[in-house]
């Protein structure tokens, strides 16, 4: 076999120009394949991260809604036959209470969840509506009380802080982090004190320790964060008052099933990430399909290039094939020579392609990409996953093998007598 490969390489070197053209074809397609997939997946990860990093896998909360059954109806049903339609009550005055937003027995739920082996992290939140008083106007805003350390660790909170430190929010009393839009409207900077009014009219002063930018402008105009303790004091509620429990799972795939289970078990509303962000999953899949399709098409095209060049080479080398056969090389040997020839082109092209692909990825990775929507990135994102290199090489060798197979088989079937006598 080594002899056959050395013959193949000698023939390649004699036809250097054609061989290089074929190898460059493979190289180009591999380069594009690797670059495209790295770039596409970099973008995918970025966009997914934008949502997924900040979104709990399951969110437990109480929806603010009217009781589905008025008490008078329930009382009637318990005493009489439910199917009796001859009577009709017209009392529909029971309205939702704000107290309903509170998760009942929140600490108990958290303790139970923390023991669950499927759960990675349980983080409580307390969300409330407030007004910021700026001069004579009041700005409507939503304040979220958070456990800062857990939010930094599991929800990338620190990544979105454009000014200030997350630490200051955790340690400082009456500290608040404002959304960029909100801070701009109030002309507030770090260290400033802002006045806030709760929905029931209580007033308090909060000190700005940071400014965050999520990339979604509308959200940044109304959102601000404080520690849970601060919000509880602001609302005058006890330490057990929580409105949301955010759960991160070890396996995101379990989220929908587990959300249903938790909703039933704790009698709360549960929203899982797949339901909440179904369109992201679809978008990622479509982008993946497109980039793989383009990559594979490129490789197939380069495969046709190799096929053509090999066919031509075999025509030019009919004499050599005949002489090899006459001196004792079998049809199988000749086929292996031309197959090896094709594989050498494929391998050289693949190695070059990986190298250039890596260089291209680096170049793209260094192109500045500054946008308001994505505060955490400064250059185009690239996924350097070696998986794509591996797929590219596998596909390249596969296509060159197939492209080489047919011409090689033809070469194996050359009848030396015909060639030698034909002269």
């Amino acid at each position, binding site marked *: 076999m080594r002899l056959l490969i050395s013959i193949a390489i000698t023939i390649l070197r004699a036809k250097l120009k054609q061989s290089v053209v074929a190898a460059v074809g493979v190289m180009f397609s591999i380069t594009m394949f690797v670059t495209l997939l790295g770039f596409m997946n970099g973008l995918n990860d970025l966009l997914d991260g934008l949502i997924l990093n900040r979104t709990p896998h399951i969110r437990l909360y109480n929806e603010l809604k009217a009781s589905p059954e008025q008490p008078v109806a329930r009382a009637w049903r318990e005493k009489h036959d439910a199917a009796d339609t001859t009577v009709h009550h017209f009392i529909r005055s029971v309205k939702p209470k704000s107290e309903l937003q509170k998760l009942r027995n929140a600490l108990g739920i958290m303790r139970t969840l923390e023991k669950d082996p499927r759960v990675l992290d349980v983080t409580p939140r307390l969300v409330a509506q407030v007004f910021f008083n700026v001069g004579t106007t009041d700005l409507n805003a939503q304040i979220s009380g958070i456990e800062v350390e857990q939010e930094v660790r599991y929800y990338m909170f620190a990544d979105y802080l454009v000014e200030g430190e997350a630490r200051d929010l955790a340690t400082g009393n009456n500290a608040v982090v404002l959304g960029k839009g909100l801070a701009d409207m109030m002309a507030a900077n770090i260290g400033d004190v802002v006045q806030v009014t709760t929905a029931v009219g209580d007033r308090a002063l909060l000190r700005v320790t940071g400014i965050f930018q999520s990339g979604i402008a509308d959200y940044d105009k109304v959102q601000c964060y404080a520690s849970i303790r601060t919000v509880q004091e602001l609302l005058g509620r006890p330490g057990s008052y929580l409105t949301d429990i955010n759960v991160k799972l070890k396996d995101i795939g379990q989220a929908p099933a587990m959300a249903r289970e938790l909703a039933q078990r704790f009698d709360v509303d549960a929203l899982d990430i797949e339901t909440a962000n179904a369109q992201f999953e679809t978008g990622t899949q479509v982008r993946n399909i497109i980039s793989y399709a383009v990559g594979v098409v490129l490789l197939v095209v380069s495969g046709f290039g190799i096929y053509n060049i090999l066919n031509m080479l075999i025509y030019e080398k009919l004499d050599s094939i005949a002489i090899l*056969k*006459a001196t004792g090389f079998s049809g*199988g040997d000749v086929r292996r020579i031309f197959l090896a020839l094709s594989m050498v082109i494929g391998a050289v092209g693949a190695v070059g392609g990986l190298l250039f692909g890596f260089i291209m990825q680096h170049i793209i990775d260094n192109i500045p990409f500054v946008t308001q929507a994505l505060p955490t990135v400064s250059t185009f994102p690239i996924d350097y996953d070696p998986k794509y290199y591996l797929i590219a090489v596998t596909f390249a060798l596969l296509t060159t093998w197939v492209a080489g197979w047919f011409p090689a088989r033809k070469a194996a079937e050359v009848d030396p007598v015909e060639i030698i006598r034909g002269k």
Partner: protein
Amino acid sequence: MSNTNALEVVKVNKSFHDPVTVPVLKDVSLEVRRGEFVSVTGKSGCGKSTLLYILSTMDTDYTGEVLIDGEATAGADKGRLARIRNEKIGFVFQFHYLLPEFSVLRNVMLPGLKLGRKSAAEVEADAMDRLRQLDMADQALKMANQLSGGQKQRVAIARALINDPLIIMGDEPTGNLDKKNSEIVFSIFEHIATEHKRSLLIVTHDVDFAARTHRNIEMEDGRVLR
């Protein structure tokens, strides 16, 4: 050495079928002993080249028996036939048929490397030895396409000798050469037959050449005359 003939042909028939069936070889029988220098002559179209390619095992479309070193080749699989060609037959053609991509030395070495009986270094030493015998040692590292016609034919003979074949077959080996080079080739062949005890079967239409060989087989219309 054993007593089997280097080559034995028993009642070989062959026809071309395109477009109509035309018989080209009719009941051809002959044998070549070890160390015998045999020439085959005849008018063009008499089937002498066709016979040679059947004997060379490259053409398998015939009926009858061909025995090389006592081994029947009719019906043997292609891999085995390639092996026989590699091991027991050396070829010299009218047109040199060297591989133009390879050096002279490498051209001579290839059948030896394919046989795989010796290491690459030993094959190279053998190849240099053959080239020296043919006075071509100083050209060993040139590319094959840099040589003159006579030189190429000598390299082709060196290649035919690399595996110490039982029989050397030639299809008009001097047909493309001038008088002087033909003479050189003839004396090399004679030397191989007498000194090295190899058999030679040379198809030629050069009457002078044929007359000087040990035995001349004359063919006409697909039959052996004598």
